[in-house]
């Protein structure tokens, strides 16, 4: 378990190359989450390209209506997540009602109908944990308004694997229980109202995005 293996070993363990920008933003939302989500999506600049994965607790009869509704609120591409489809930039993937949404290491999405977690399917814990194992430090997880504690355990895994955790400030949330549970369990330091969450996401993602698209600044020669 200890990360001190490197010190004690006489063999050099090569570390994998670090990729420039974040691989994904995973968002968990439940009761009262739509308002916060709308503020975040409308606050993101048009050139924000990191893909967004959303687990929003929905009624099982939703049949894609939530995704349709969201796409009317934002210029971003919003789709009901499809099994085994490659995650694309500039796209928001919504976990379909009655399915868990997970991420595979090859950058594709996966769905499951495994038992409900925290009485929920999709479960935010399932999305956060799975995305954390794939993206590690390249994941930003955001927990919004809700009346359950789904997402708290997942947020802990995100933090343990080096990802960034952000919570909606409970005093701004329509239902403070869910962000509060995640803050308490995973010791989230970044606690903000929704409009500031959008700003924070931009600050974290946009410079790295620009650096990637302008390699000359980094590369020295050429």
């Amino acid at each position, binding site marked *: *378990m200890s990360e001190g293996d490197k010190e004690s070993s006489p063999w050099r*363990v090569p*570390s*994998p190359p670090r990729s420039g920008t974040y691989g994904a933003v995973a968002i968990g939302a439940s009761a009262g989450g739509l308002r916060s989500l709308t503020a975040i999506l409308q606050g993101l600049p048009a050139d924000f390209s990191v893909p967004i994965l959303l687990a929003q607790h929905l009624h099982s009869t939703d*049949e894609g209506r939530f995704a349709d509704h969201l796409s009317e609120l934002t210029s971003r591409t919003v789709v009901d997540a*499809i*099994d*085994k489809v490659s995650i694309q930039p500039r796209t928001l993937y919504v976990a*379909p009602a*009655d*399915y868990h949404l*997970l*991420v*595979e*290491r090859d950058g594709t999405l*996966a*769905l*499951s*109908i*495994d*038992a409900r977690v925290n009485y929920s399917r999709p479960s935010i814990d*399932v999305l956060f*944990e*799975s995305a*954390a*194992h*794939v993206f*590690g430090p390249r994941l930003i997880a955001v927990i919004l308004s809700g009346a359950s504690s789904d997402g708290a355990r997942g947020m802990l895994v995100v933090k*343990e*694997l*080096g990802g960034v955790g952000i919570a909606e400030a409970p005093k701004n949330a329509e239902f403070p229980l869910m962000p509060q549970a995640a803050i308490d369990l995973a010791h989230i330091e970044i606690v903000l109202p929704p409009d500031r969450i959008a700003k924070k996401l931009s600050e974290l993602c946009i410079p790295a995005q620009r650096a990637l698209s302008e390699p000359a600044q980094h590369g020295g020669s050429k």
Partner: protein
Amino acid sequence: MNRAEREHIEIDLLLEAVFRRYGYDFRSYARASIERRTRVFQHTSGCATIAEMIPKVLYDEGFFSQLAQTLSVTVTEMFRDPFFYLSFRENVVPLLKTWPHFKVWHAGCATGEEVYSLAIVLKEEGLLERATLYATDFNDRSLSIAKEGIYDLDSLRKATESYQLAGGKKSFSLYYHAQYDAAAMDAELKKRLTFSNHNLASDHVFGDMQLILCRNVLIYFNRELQNRALGLFTESLVHGGFLCLGSKEELQFSSVRDEYVKLDPKAKIYKRTATP
């Protein structure tokens, strides 16, 4: 190397051990769900690492069978996706009525709820007597629950709404007999049903079927195993027969897509093209 990378290796080795020791191949399953289930099992088993599970799998058959149960169990419910059954009544039933007798393969039937749902629809459409239904799964424990057809009364009561949304024509409670907090499915529904063990990852085709249902099973497979299973279905299905998948499953990316026409893109009902 970080924890996630190391766990990935541990799970590779665990699945390899399971396959080489017992012949069950979970290596071609959709990895994210297998990893989640493996971690869930690790926590309940009290093992500190996934690697610690490997010697136990190799030397302790009881431990393996508990692990296999966790890795292979699927969750289902009566009339899951009511719109599927509505579409089935509309698009498939009229054609089934043109056959004097037909065979149905329900692949990956899990604990059987959806097999009984289908039997109820066929009965209401006057087709049950003409049908022979084969329901298969590779998890023996799920299969024995399916065979018994005894379910939690609460979950059946909750399914009443789905039954009605699915176009149910009677009172759902006519189809089960409640006793205390359990209920047994009506014996008449079982008369045309045969349950048997079949593994889509390793077993072969299943005879000339007019209808195959395999719903929410393929999402657990990787592309290669999906293509294997879809190949089995295509070989087992007569020309003009029907294939019903889960509402988030597609033939679009598979090797057999040209063999089918889509009857209902939302309910994922496909018809095998009529001519060879």
